[in-house]
């Protein structure tokens, strides 16, 4: 697969601008005043396309995007923008045979803003969707991802983290196993501070005849303050016996023993908590196979812990 890397940027400003030149692959996006729609279509499997999303607009960003990743193609989207006036993304993706889509979102939202992210993605045979999403800030944050593993050996690996001070956040993840021999692995972590109310609802659905299914789902939350809340709903809907599915959920306060250990080494309470949270979130940064993005994710965590 793709040896050559092509880096380009999509800049949201008064209009939408594309920096970098594409060969066979196509990006068609139109709009103004924060309202953009269009498509990204990959047909060239000889290069790996990296698309950076950059926000320079004063408007709330409403993005409606269709993504089609052709056979053997590799698409990576990186979004490290801060949407000061909020955002509303609607993405529909289709991965064709043997393709890969990596989506990184490392956002620090304006605490006053309202953001939503809606992603529906269908995977064909041997496709991989890797989804890593960290968010901080926002007054309201709604995220919903529906992944359909439609053919053999389709796989999904993803992790999400919400770190907030006073956010109403709802994260919904639905993974549909619609073919045999598909795999999914999802982890969600959250640190709920202040008056945050964070909900994670994860559903793993395994259809009839989907034998050789493997699925794991982990959700963990830290309730840091008096008024903070975390609701975890890890659901399984299994309609076949040839499956190995496991899910785990845990929420609570940080482990006092660990905090005490750190403090006994002379570290202040604040720093001890910071280290604790870094470790807590860092656990699944390991799942990011892309070195550059793994580093960025670590930096991101350090900056917000």
């Amino acid at each position: 697969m793709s040896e050559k890397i092509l880096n380009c940027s999509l800049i949201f400003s008064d209009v939408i601008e594309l920096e970098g030149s594409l060969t066979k692959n196509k990006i068609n996006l139109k709009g103004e005043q924060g309202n953009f729609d269009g498509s990204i279509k990959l047909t060239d499997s000889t290069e790996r396309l990296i698309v950076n999303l950059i926000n320079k607009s004063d408007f709330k960003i409403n993005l409606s995007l269709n993504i089609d990743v052709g056979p053997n193609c590799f698409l990576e989207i990186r979004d490290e923008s801060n949407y000061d006036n909020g955002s509303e993304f609607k993405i529909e993706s289709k991965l064709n045979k043997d393709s890969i889509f990596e989506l990184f979102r490392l956002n620090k939202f304006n605490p006053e803003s309202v953001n939503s992210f809606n992603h529906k993605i269908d995977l064909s045979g041997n496709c991989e969707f890797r989804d890593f999403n960290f968010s901080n800030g926002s007054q309201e944050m709604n995220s919903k991802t529906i992944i359909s593993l439609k053919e053999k050996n389709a796989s999904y690996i993803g992790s999400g983290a919400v770190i907030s001070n006073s956010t109403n956040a709802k994260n919904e993840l639905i993974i549909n196993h619609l073919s045999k021999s598909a795999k999914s692995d999802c982890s969600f972590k959250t640190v709920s501070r202040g008056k945050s109310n964070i909900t994670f609802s994860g559903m793993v659905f395994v259809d009839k005849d989907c034998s050789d299914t493997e699925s794991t789902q982990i959700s963990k939350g830290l309730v840091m303050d008096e008024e903070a809340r975390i609701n975890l709903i890890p659901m399984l809907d299994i309609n076949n016996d040839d499956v190995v599915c496991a899910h785990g959920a845990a929420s609570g306060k940080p482990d006092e023993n660990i905090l005490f250990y750190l403090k006994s080494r002379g570290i202040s309470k604040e720093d001890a908590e910071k280290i604790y949270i870094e470790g807590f979130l860092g656990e699944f940064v390991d799942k990011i196979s892309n070195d550059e993005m793994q580093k960025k994710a670590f930096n991101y965590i350090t900056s917000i812990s």
Partner: protein
Amino acid sequence: MNKVSKDNFQQDKYKYGFVTDIESDKIPKGLNEDVIRLISKKKEEPQWMLDWRLKAYERLQHMEPPKWVKAKFDDIDFQDIYYYASPKDFKDKPKSLDEVDPKLLETYEKLGIPLKEQKVLAGVAVDAVFDSVSVATTFKDKLDEIGVIFCPISEAIRKHPDLVKKYLGTVIPVTDHYYATLNSAVFSDGSFVYIPKGVKCPMELSTYFRINASETGQFERTLIVADEGSYVSYLEGCTAPMRDENQLHAANVELVALDNAEIKYSTVQNWYPGDENGVGGIYNFVTKRGLCKGVNSKISWTQVETGSAITWKYPSCILRGDNSTGEFYSVAITNNYQQADTGTKMIHLGKNTKSRIISKGISAGKSSNTYRGLVSFNKRAKNAKNYTQCDSLLVGGKCSAHTIPLTENGSNDSSIEHEATTSKISDEQLFYVMQRGLDAEAAQGLIVNGFCKEVLQKLPMEFAVEAQKLVNISLEGSVG
């Protein structure tokens, strides 16, 4: 060798499916004020009880049956049910067993619950409920001596009105939901237990519910109050004849544990599950809730659910007292077209409250098995802890397992832990055990019993063996 195929469960022989040939006295079909007045009159209830029922009925007029259960069934025609049935000429509860119709004694004998003094199960006091009435209670004198009240609730309403008034409806409000409200309006019989301060009840208390009459619903009501520092272990068993109609069983069970008291409530539910084509069987829509009212109190639910066409229940604990503990241990086996949607709610209100949930679901045939649970930590529930483990085992490719656990953590000084797995019986395990000479069926029974072990061993000893056998019977014919 043929590869071990896990096909449909064959219809296991439901050995409790017989009908007792006894004439029954029924109140006309239908749900209306007159029916409620008649039930109250039959039970010779005081006015306050009738008023309570009518209030519930009034509320019911403004309610709809809930629909969110993960089960498919046709709407129930609540006007097409007999709400009260008793053996004919059964006016008051017989004073002694000599007065009980021998056919009834024979029925319980056949169910493995002998009521005659010389044969009673040692260490277990039994209240036998037949359709809408209690027919006998054993070991009454012995319990009287230590002040333990164990009697039909209809008797308690007459003899211990203050206790009943004080606690009835305090855990499950009359207005809770449709079926609970329906029960409050039309409940017939069930057991009442009161354990006085400081008394550790020396024997298991047990109620055996039997539906016999056709087209009849059973609406039992059970209330157990454990006063300060007391302890009781209570067990209910249930069976019904094989019929091709669906019969409704909508019970309310309320438990109250005061300071330092402990209630252990076990259920072995084996209502008729319907036949292999999903015809007939009991709709088991039950509301069970315990209130840990006092400090250091503890309520523990253990259930083995193998019967019923549809099981829809969530034995729950409200942990109000500081340091109180709630436990839920469940095995639910579904087979053929059975549907189960069961689990628990643990509502943590007090400080240092703890709860533990162990649920084992086994689905076979074309059945559907759902674990649904809620663990909720109130802001005040400092240092609260919960541990949940729910495992599902699937036998055959046509059944389904669903897990819907909801955790709400609003306490920053607490921990909720939830683990769940779904798997099938491994071929390696089956092969290993078969290599030692056990046939496929016995091998599967052994492994499934192991899977359920953690829950089965929570049952009172007298019933654990019985429950183990029940698990095996449910598995008979499931491998070919």
